[in-house]
């Protein structure tokens, strides 16, 4: 009985912590990105609101929330609102299978810093990643706007092609680890002492491409290409209704996928114990943010592809490469392991 209450409390706390951290981080990532972009572009980024502009996300949020709600004519109201939820929920749900650090003990109980320690965690990531596409699709369809419609169609084409590549890329890591559980994957990397990026550099690059594509970052941000489609699928949304979309897609999605990539290729929380008891957590965050840094860097430097090129790229180049990589890994595992 005691055990059950303890477990329930732990899970509730975990959910609260993850929700608070991810949503807070999501908001502060906007500050991070703006600051980063500013310095990249010989500007200074936000400086006015608070020290170093640190209160800027709050000001942005306040502004978005106090905007007059405007509903365009001829929309499908139910879908219109559902799209917002469909975009936000899967993005947050992704964090359910992110292990933030090694397991530790509280009052004799072992606690794993993960909301749901699933044995099919990676499969779950794919599922949620695909679910996120519905948000875009619904938004595009419900808005009754041609720009939004074209944007959402592009996103659909993109998700369909990159999900496949993502699957094959991650599958080779799963083959090496022999498990879909994130803890097992990290443990096997720690045990062998070699991160999987050493064995699977190709698969990592493919994963990175998919990460950029799924989260709508440059060079694959075809669904919201400003110069072509104004902002694409979310053009008819205003106020916080609009704010949710970039938050979910550009920040939460990217952050979650970066965390997953850290688990798959960079040994999760493994690293030298130089930060005391929180060493594992800090290493995990450092690696995740390192990847995020790379994503932002790419976003603010490169031009974007055309819609047809993006899809062509996935089917013609990435998919065959990923399959070859998978087969090679399979042989490797069969004969060596």
């Amino acid at each position, binding site marked *: 009985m005691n055990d059950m209450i303890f477990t329930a409390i732990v899970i509730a706390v975990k959910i609260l912590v993850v929700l608070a951290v991810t949503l807070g981080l999501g908001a502060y990532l906007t500050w991070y990105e703006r600051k980063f972009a500013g310095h990249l572009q010989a500007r200074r980024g936000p400086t006015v609101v608070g020290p170093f502009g640190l209160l800027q996300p709050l000001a942005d949020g306040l502004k978005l929330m106090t905007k007059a709600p405007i509903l365009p004519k001829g929309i499908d109201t139910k879908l219109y609102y559902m799209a917002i939820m469909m975009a936000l929920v899967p993005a947050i749900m992704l964090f359910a299978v992110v292990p933030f650090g090694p397991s530790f003990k509280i009052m004799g109980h072992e606690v794993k810093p993960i909301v749901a320690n699933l044995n099919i965690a990676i499969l779950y990531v794919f599922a949620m990643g695909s679910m996120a596409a519905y948000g875009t699709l619904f938004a595009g369809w419900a808005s009754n706007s*041609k720009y939004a419609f074209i944007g959402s169609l592009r996103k659909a084409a993109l998700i369909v092609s990159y999900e496949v590549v993502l699957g094959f890329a991650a599958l080779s890591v799963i083959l090496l680890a022999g498990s879909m559980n994130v803890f097992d994957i990290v443990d096997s990397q720690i045990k062998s002492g070699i991160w999987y990026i050493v064995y699977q550099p190709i698969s990592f690059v493919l994963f990175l491409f998919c990460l950029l594509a799924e989260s709508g970052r440059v060079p694959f941000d075809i669904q919201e*290409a400003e*110069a*072509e489609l104004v902002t694409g699928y979310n053009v008819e949304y205003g106020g916080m209704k609009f704010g949710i979309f970039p938050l979910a897609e550009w920040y939460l999605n990217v952050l979650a996928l970066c965390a997953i990539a850290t688990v798959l290729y960079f040994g999760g929380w493994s690293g030298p114990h130089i930060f005391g008891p929180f060493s594992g957590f800090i290493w995990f965050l450092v690696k995740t943010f390192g990847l995020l840094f790379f994503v932002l860097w790419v976003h*603010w*430097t*490169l*031009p974007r*592809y*055309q819609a047809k090129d993006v899809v062509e790229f996935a089917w013609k180049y990435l998919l065959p490469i990923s399959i070859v990589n998978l087969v090679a890994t399979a042989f490797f595992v069969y004969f060596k392991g």
Partner: protein
Amino acid sequence: MPWASKDTLERIKHSFRQINIDIQPHFVCINVEDTKDITNILKHLKDVEDFRYFIDFHVIDFPKEKDRFLGQYILVNPYTFERLAVKVWFKNNKLPTAKEIFAGAKWAEREAYDMFGVEFEGHEDVKRMFMWEDYKYFPLRKDFPLGGIPEQKLPSLTEVLEGNTMPPSHDYDIMHTYVPTIKEIEKTEKSRITKRGQLVLNWGPLHPGTHGTMWFLFDLEGEHIIQTDVILGQLHRGMEKIAENIHYFQFLPYTDRMDYLSAVCNELSYVQAVEKLANIEVPLKARYIRTMFAELQRINSHLLWLGTGALDLGALTVFLYAFREREKIMDIIEGNAGFRLTSAFLRIGGVHYDLAKGTLEVAKYFVKDFYSKLKEYHGLLTRNRIWLKRTKDVGVITQEDVYQYGLTGPVARGSGVAYDMRKIDPYAAYDLVDFDIPVGDIGDVYDRYLVRMEEMYQSARIVEQCIEALEKMPENEPYVNKKHPAVIPPKEDVFNDLEDMVKSFRIVVHGENMPKGEVYSSGENPRGELGFYIYSIGKSSPYRLRIRSCSFYNLSVFPKVIEKHTISDAVALLGSIDPVVGETDR
């Protein structure tokens, strides 16, 4: 000398008896007597005499003459760079169309119809170019008043509440010129395109990709565009009409507002046309200053193109890098002219102010720094694979297109046509400086990108040479030729010298009558050949001033090239054509 030589004219005269040749100092034209011959003559000029480069077509209105409207073609031989004007009278308001011979004439004829109500045989369903369908008037006709015809009541609140008061409660009239209704705008939209594909996408008039109030209609089949039309005129201000009603010197600030990204270049084109008409010598110092500022303006304009062009293709950072340098040029221009954008820096006969103290030093530092900045831009884009994928073999404009549509500037040079007014007909101090003209090969977006990048480099070179020359000049060298009767003396003289004050007063109030005659003169703008045709009848304002807009003709090729391409290509192509709406619409 860019006008047709005696030999050429002799040959043409030999082939066609029914023409008169009219040679003026800055204008050479053949008058075609019989309207029926015009098609044959144009064909002959194009095929036999190689005048295949279509530059302009415009109309002049003579209400008192028997045939009223005079049409005029301006053609160029792209091999010898001879220029020739062909004049022909409309018969019963009609002229055979030239759109089969020169594709660029299609838009020019639409404009002529829009502004003069003239018709073209063989171009039957001619559409309005700038005004909306169902608009009743033809604004450039001489009998159309400058202020328009007031016919619509737009009363103020006071008038609604209290009736007409005397004196009026405000200083505008109750009656206004006609304003199009939504219905008429919709009709205009419908008349342009008949839907064949899956959906018609309205791209503009307010859209981040069009860089202005251009209105594209894309008929889409999936992502592919199967037909396009452009609705222009949202920024139409009737520049040509305005010019006919004000003094020559008064029109100068209006030119700033055409291609607002290259104000000094516009001014230079206009000012030299007037100078040619009035035969004004310009002091050497003014010529160097003009060249220097025109080239700075060119860099400025190209930087904006680079920034926005890259932004369109998703490269967000290049935009701010380009604007960083642009700000420095703006600073130099502002310090000298007093304005950043619409500078109004040049004057007929010279420049408005002497160089501000320290300008040369600042410009020197800027140019020195600019070479390394150019390398930075190249590093960001030139060999970037995504950039190559987006620009290579996209929007290919052939040489034939260039001649047919009258494309000029980097668009023409990107396709391998080395047509640059700075070399062909050097004006200002371009004959005294050393520079090269880059030309492209295939004529795709990438070639135009490279041409413009190289042009920036060459402009920086020119600026360097101008600085060198200006540094050697003594400080009190004149910068305005104030001895000429048509030139307003510089302000500092006006305040200190009675004679100059009287002269300034006389010109400003009454204007100075210019000699009779015609002039077509053009300058190389960042976007192409900006030409001014002036028909003077000896008054202080032109009888007809035609602005040969480079953006307008450059844009006219867009619907043809974009067919069967995607929307993403449309963005890339439009960015590389780089039209400015202030100039397409005038």
